[in-house]
C-alpha cells in the first residue's frame, strides 16, 4: 500500500471555551474521494481551515505529500497544493472568469501590461477541463451558482492542486447540476486529484465517496469504506448517545401543547426559500423546527414575523390575520422573534442593558412620549433577576457581557413586550453550556405560562431535547411532523439529510 497523500496526526485546536479539535488523526489516500461528515460543530470546518492555512493548529502534525505542512495563509496552502472551495463562493462577481481565476498572478508582458491572449488561452484550457461552456471573458456574476462553482474548481486546478477540499458544494445545486459536478469530480480523481468532500447529504456521499470519516465533538469517530457501511451506521456514528439529562429542564410534560391553537400558518412562501408551509402552534407548546443550514428554517420564522416580505400565505394569531407588512405590526399583535444573528440583529451592543430591555416595550416605561427612567431601570432589574443575568447593573453596556448574558438581554427585551408567540432562531448559538441549560429552562417556563414557542437550533440534539413536537424541514418545505415516540435523532437526521424526491 502506498503512503497516504495526507496524514493528520494528533491535531488539537482550542478556541476560547471550546476544544474544537481533540486529538484528531486521519489519513487520506492519494487519488481517492474522502467524505467528511458530522453535525454542526463537530469540527469539520475547523480541520479544513487548518489544512487551508486559515487557522493554525495548537498541537499535532500534518504530513502532506510526505512533508510537514506549515502553511500560515490560504495562499501558502494553495502553493503547497491544497485548495479549498468554500460553501459561500468567494469569487468577485464583477470580474471576468479569466480575471477571477488568475487574480493576483495575471500573466503580463512586462511593465504591468496584461497579456490578454495568454490569459484567455490558459482560462479556456481550464474551462475545458471542468466542462464549463463559457467564454473566458464572461463576467462571473452572470453565471449561475453551479457554473460559478466550476469556475472555483478551475481556479483550484490552475494552482495544480493535489488536494481539493469541497465544503457543501451541492447545497445550492439542483439534481442535474449535482450530477454534472459529480462527473467532473470523478474526472479529477482519474487525473490523480484527491478530494475531501464535506456534505450533510448522506445519499450524495454514498454516491461519490470512496471512504467516509465521521466526526463528532471535535474527534474522529471512525473511518469506513463507503462500500462496507450503511446510511444508518453513519447516522448512528454522527449522533452517538444524546445527553439525556442535559435537557431535563427543557422537557415538557406529556400534556404540553394540547392547548388551543394560538398561531396558524397557512401556505406560506418566501421567494424560493420557503415553499407553501402550513402548520399550527398550540398554547403552551414548544414546537421544534429541525433542518440543516439552508433548509429554509430561518427564512420561515422571518417570514412569519414579517421581517422579510412573504410571497404568499397568511399568518393568524388567535384567529386574527396578522398583516405582514412590517415587524412592528407583528410585535404589536404579540409575535416576537429572537433572530439568529445576535450581534447584528438581536442586541444593541453599544447601548445599556436598561435601554435594550425596554426597546420593544417602551409603552410600559413611558408616558405621553416621555421615557420614565426610573421605571425603565426597574424593568431592567426585574428582568435581570428573572433570567439570572450576570452584570454589574442596568447601566452596563451589552457589549461588555458574555455571549450567554447578551442573549439573556435579548430574551428580556421580548419578555418585557409580553408576547403570545415567541420565535427563537438558534437562541443558544455560541454560548456556553451552563447558559444553554438555563435558556432551556426559560423556554419551558414560558411555554408553561401559556406562550406558543417555536424553537430552531443548529444542534440537532437540542431541538430533540427541548421540543414537544418537531417539524422537519428540507429545501424550504416541511417534509414530516414527528411527535412523542416518533422523535429520534436518527429519524430526524435521515429525513433532513435525504435527497430531493
Amino acid at each position, binding site marked *: 500500500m502506498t503512503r497516504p497523500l495526507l496524514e493528520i496526526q494528533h491535531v488539537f485546536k482550542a478556541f476560547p471555551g471550546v476544544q474544537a479539535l481533540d486529538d484528531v488523526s486521519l489519513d487520506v489516500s492519494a487519488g481517492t474521494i474522502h467524505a467528511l461528515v458530522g453535525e454542526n460543530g463537530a469540527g469539520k470546518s475547523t480541520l479544513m481551515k487548518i489544512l487551508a492555512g486559515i487557522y493554525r493548529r495548537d498541537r499535532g502534525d500534518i504530513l502532506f505529500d510526505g512533508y510537514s505542512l506549515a502553511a500560515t495563509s490560504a495562499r501558502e496552502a494553495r502553493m503547497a497544493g491544497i485548495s479549498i472551495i468554500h460553501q459561500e463562493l468567494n469569487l468577485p462577481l464583477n470580474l471576468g472568469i479569466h480575471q477571477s481565476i488568475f487574480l493576483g498572478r495575471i500573466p503580463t508582458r512586462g511593465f504591468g501590461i496584461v497579456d490578454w491572449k495568454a490569459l484567455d488561452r490558459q482560462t479556456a484550457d481550464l474551462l475545458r477541463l471542468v466542462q464549463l461552456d463559457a467564454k473566458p471573458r464572461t463576467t462571473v456574476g452572470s453565471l449561475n451558482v453551479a457554473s460559478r462553482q466550476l469556475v472555483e474548481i478551475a481556479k483550484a486546478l490552475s494552482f495544480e492542486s493535489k488536494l481539493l477540499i469541497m465544503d457543501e458544494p451541492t447545497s445550492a445545486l439542483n439534481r442535474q447540476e449535482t450530477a454534472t459536478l459529480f462527473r467532473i469530480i470523478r474526472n479529477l480523481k482519474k487525473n490523480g486529484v484527491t478530494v475531501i468532500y464535506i456534505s450533510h447529504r448522506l445519499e450524495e456521499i454514498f454516491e461519490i465517496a470512496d471512504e467516509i470519516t465521521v466526526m463528532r465533538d471535535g474527534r474522529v469517530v471512525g473511518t469506513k469504506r463507503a462500500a462496507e457501511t450503511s446510511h444508518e451506521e453513519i447516522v448512528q456514528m454522527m449522533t452517538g448517545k444524546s445527553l439525556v439529562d442535559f435537557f431535563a429542564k427543557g422537557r415538557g410534560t406529556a400534556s404540553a401543547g394540547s392547548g388551543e391553537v394560538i398561531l396558524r400558518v397557512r401556505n406560506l412562501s418566501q421567494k424560493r426559500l420557503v415553499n407553501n408551509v402550513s402548520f399550527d402552534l398550540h398554547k403552551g407548546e414548544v414546537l421544534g423546527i429541525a433542518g440543516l443550514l439552508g433548509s429554509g428554517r430561518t427564512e420561515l420564522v422571518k417570514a412569519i*414575523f414579517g*421581517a422579510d416580505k412573504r410571497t404568499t400565505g397568511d399568518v393568524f394569531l388567535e384567529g386574527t390575520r396578522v398583516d405582514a407588512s*412590517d*415587524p*412592528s405590526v*407583528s*410585535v*404589536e399583535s404579540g409575535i416576537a*422573534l429572537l*433572530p439568529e444573528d445576535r450581534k*447584528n*440583529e*438581536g*442586541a*444593541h*451592543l*453599544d*447601548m*445599556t442593558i436598561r*435601554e435594550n430591555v425596554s*426597546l*420593544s416595550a*417602551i409603552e410600559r416605561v*413611558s408616558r405621553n*412620549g*416621555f*421615557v420614565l427612567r426610573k421605571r425603565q431601570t426597574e424593568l431592567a432589574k426585574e428582568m435581570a433577576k428573572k433570567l439570572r443575568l450576570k452584570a*454589574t*447593573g442596568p*447601566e*452596563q*453596556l451589552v457589549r461588555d457581557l458574555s455571549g450567554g448574558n447578551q442573549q439573556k438581554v435579548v430574551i428580556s*427585551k421580548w419578555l418585557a*413586550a409580553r408576547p403570545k408567540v415567541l420565535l427563537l432562531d438558534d437562541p443558544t448559538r455560541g454560548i456556553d453550556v451552563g447558559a444553554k441549560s438555563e435558556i432551556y429552562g426559560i423556554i419551558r417556563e414560558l411555554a408553561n405560562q401559556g406562550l406558543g414557542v417555536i424553537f430552531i437550533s443548529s444542534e440537532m440534539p437540542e431541538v430533540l431535547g427541548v421540543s414537544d413536537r418537531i417539524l422537519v424541514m428540507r429545501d424550504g418545505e416541511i417534509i414530516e411532523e414527528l411527535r412523542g415516540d416518533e422523535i429520534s435523532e436518527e429519524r430526524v437526521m435521515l429525513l433532513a439529510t435525504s435527497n430531493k424526491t
Partner: protein
Amino acid sequence: MENGKPATGVKSLSANGEKLSQRALTAFKRSFSQYALWWVFGGLLILASILSPRFLTYRNITNVFRQFSIMGVLAVGMTYVILSGGIDLSVGGVMAFSCVLVPVVGGVIGDSIPAITVACLVSGALLGLATGLFISIGRLQPFIATLGMSAVAEGLAFILSNGRPIILEDLRWSRFGNGYSLGIPNLALLFIGVIVVGQVILKRTVFGTYVYALGNNEEATRLSGVRTRTLKTTTYVISAFLAALGGLMMTARIGVGDPGVGTGYALDVIAAVVVGGTRLGGGFGSVLNTLLGASIIGVLNNVFNLLNISPYPQMVFKGLIIIAAVLFEEMRKRRE
C-alpha cells in the same frame, strides 16, 4: 457622552478589592477621554484670553454667540440625522431657500411675520420630508439623496430671487435679528431654546431613545418592532425644519433674502457636530456635544479674526480640524 458612567463601574467592584485600583484608573481614564473635549474647550478659552485682551469682553462674547447661533441651530438638526446613522448635506440649500422665501412670501401675502414664519418653516419641513422618503422608502444613500436635495433647494432659491439678493422692506426682521433681550442677542436666545428642546427630546422621549437605537443597530431596531422608516424620515424633517429656521434667522440678521447664503454651509455644520464628539455613523453623541463643537469652532473663528488672520487659512484649518476629530474618534474606537 451619555455613556460616561464611571460611577456604575466603581460601585460594582467594591467586592473585588484586588482589582479596585486598576479599575478605578481605567474609570478615570475613561472619564478623561469622555470629557477630553471640555478640557480642550477650557484650554482654548484660556489661550484666547491670553492671545487677545479683547476676547473676554462682553461685546466680543455676544458677537461670538450671534455668529455661531445660526450655524448651531442647523447643527442641532444635523445631530439627529447623524445620531440615527445618516448625514444631511442639504442644510445649506434649505437654509438659502427659506432665507429667500421670506421676502418672496412677504410680497405675496403681506407683512404678517407669523404667516411668513409658518410658510417658511413648513416649506422647509416639506423638503425634508421629500428627502426622508427618498432615503427610507426609496432606499437611496443619504449622502446622494441630500446632495441632490441641496442642489434642488439652492436652485429654487436662485429661481425665486432671480439670482439676486432681495432687500427686505419690513425692517422689523432686522431689528429682531440684531436686537437683544435681557442683554443677550435674540438669535442666541433662539439657539439656546433649540438646544434645550433638542436635548430634552433626545434624552427624555421615546423618539430620542429610538434615534439612538437606530444609529446603534438599524436591523436590530427594525426587528424590535420600531417603525424605522418613519423614524428615519422624521430625522430629516427635523433637520430641514431647523435649517429653515436658520434661514429665517439669517434673513433677520442680514436684512436680505440672499440665495447664496447656504453655499458651503453644510461643512461648518457637520464640523460642529463631529468636533463635538458625535460619532459619524450614529449611536453616540448628543445635542450638548454639538453645542460644545459649535462653541469650539465659534471661538476658533473669533480668535482668528481677533488676530487678523485672513479667512482663507481659516478654511484650511476648519477642514483639518474635521479630519482630526474623526481620526481621533476612529483611533479611540480601534483601541476599544
